[in-house]
């Protein structure tokens, strides 16, 4: 695949650090978003997903700084901690559906942010933690780029495979008619918890990379607004297949940068969400279909 080769060769071509930074953030966003997409497929709208990236970031940081662990165990530990908390939260919460679940995840995200802001020891409180070191062998921006790329590729592969398999079929039926799924033997809670856990693990890994790349984390990096951003990637991009969240993440991460929107970024995301919900039920990915349909009517 040409695209893949291009992506791999990217840092060699002398593009600016800023562009690579943009790519890294986009790749991390893709990782978080495709995971969240699985949760959404099971019919649960989680608007607290940034919390799991936050957990991963702080876990990885604390493993390295406070426990003195080397990077790789910390990285995997971050994913595990995130996944574990997701399971603990998910088992009681995923029984709750619809708007109630959305409110609950909203509450969870805010509660987590508040607790981290309140505890200066060990979380550094509102000011966060600075001086997060580069792992061994990760000196350059390019190395973080490759790391994010690999993680994104793994996430996309995993998510796509699940979606095309009986897992995806089960998820979709659970999302649309869960009693029908139950009556043919599908254990709803089990599937929902697995989806929730996987998404959290991926977000945790992304959080860990972010923490070490950025060298600084604070609770304000992982707010309701960030969680909503992930949701907007999915909504704008479309939910039908894995390319929806990917497209959404790419377009919505890059376009605001290109347009140099700073404070208007939420305005842009919000406006797009509203436009898509009102006019384009299936997201941007569906635009080719819509165009085709319009042409056929002529």
């Amino acid at each position, binding site marked *: 695949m040409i695209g893949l080769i291009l992506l791999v060769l990217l840092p060699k071509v002398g593009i600016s650090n800023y562009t690579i930074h943009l790519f890294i953030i986009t790749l991390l966003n893709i990782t978080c978003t495709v995971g969240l997409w699985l949760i959404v497929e099971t019919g649960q709208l989680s*608007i607290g997903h940034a919390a799991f990236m936050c957990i991963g970031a702080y876990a990885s940081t604390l493993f390295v700084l406070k426990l003195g662990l080397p990077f790789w165990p910390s990285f995997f530990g971050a994913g595990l901690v995130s996944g574990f908390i997701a399971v603990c939260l998910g088992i009681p919460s995923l029984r709750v559906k619809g708007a109630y679940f959305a409110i609950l995840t909203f*509450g969870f995200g805010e509660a987590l942010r508040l607790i981290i802001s309140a505890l200066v020891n060990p979380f550094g409180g509102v000011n966060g933690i600075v001086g997060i070191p580069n792992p061994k062998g990760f000196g350059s921006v390019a190395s973080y780029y490759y790391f994010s790329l690999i993680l994104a590729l793994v996430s996309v592969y995993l998510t796509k495979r699940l979606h095309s398999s009986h897992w995806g079929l089960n998820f979709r039926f659970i999302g649309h008619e869960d009693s029908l799924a139950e009556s043919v033997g599908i254990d709803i809670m089990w599937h929902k918890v697995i989806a929730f856990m996987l998404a959290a693990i991926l977000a945790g890994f992304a959080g860990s990379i972010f923490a070490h790349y950025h060298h600084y984390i604070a609770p304000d990096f992982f707010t309701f607004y960030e969680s909503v951003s992930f949701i907007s990637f999915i909504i704008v991009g479309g939910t039908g297949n894995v390319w929806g969240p990917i497209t959404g993440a790419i377009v919505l991460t890059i376009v605001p940068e290109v347009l140099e929107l700073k404070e208007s970024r939420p*305005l842009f995301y919000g406006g797009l969400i*509203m436009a898509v*919900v009102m006019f384009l039920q299936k997201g941007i990915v569906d635009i080719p279909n819509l165009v085709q349909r319009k042409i056929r009517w002529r």
Partner: protein
Amino acid sequence: MEQIFLDGLQLSLFYILVALGLAMVFSILDIVNFAHGEFYMLGAFAVYYAVQRWHLPYVLGVIAAFLFVFAVGMFCERFLFRRVEGVGYNALVLSIGLSLVLSSGALNLFGTRDKAVDTVVQGVLRLSIGEGISISWERVTIMACALLFIGLTFLLIHHTKLGRAMRAIAQNKAAAIQLGVDIQRDSMLGFALGCGLAGLAGAIIAPAIYLYPAMGLGPCIKAFVVIVLGGMGSIHGVVVGGFILGFLEATTRFLTTGVWADFVAFLVLMAVLIIKPTGMMGQKL
């Protein structure tokens, strides 16, 4: 002890006023409005402009704020929410988008510097309860206004034609249609009223706090806690939920710091949703 009671009372009344509109919108239109906090913010900013820029008297400013937010609410229902009626998460997601648009729009329009509205009522009221408590007239006014608007709302709901229509729609849409209720118009008015109440809450608290575009998030979250506690379909439940949260928070604030009070509110929210999603008095799920 008396401190907790007064703080709790003030918080409760305020939360009830903020949450009343949210509960109304949910029970009449089945919409979970995540942009509710932004209407609160608009009310506060409207008062700011009316009082500080156009030099209107405060009372006029509050009325103007209500009318302004009411109008914005009407527009949103008619042209935005009505388009996405009924389909799954659409209204909820739309409200999230609206929340971002309004708060970010406000940021662009009003700038990043905090705004302040001049104190309306000066002086301090000294009550000789226990060891003698003093409470500013400002806080008393806020409580009185909140109580007034809450009372007016309940009067409207129970003793006017519109109120009866709204209750009918909330209980059984099909039956309401049979009874000749104009669903579209009365739902729109209900939505606008709900937003207007949030705007009123913002307007009455404006003199006491600093205004900034993202100020709606906190009260919005508290409003959700209140209606979950009280039961999401129930208007009366808002009163119950409001008092529970208000006094819980006042007690926590007294014992520790503000941040923990917010955290406790969330724990309660999550616990109620997990254990008894219908809350104290709600029926709809």
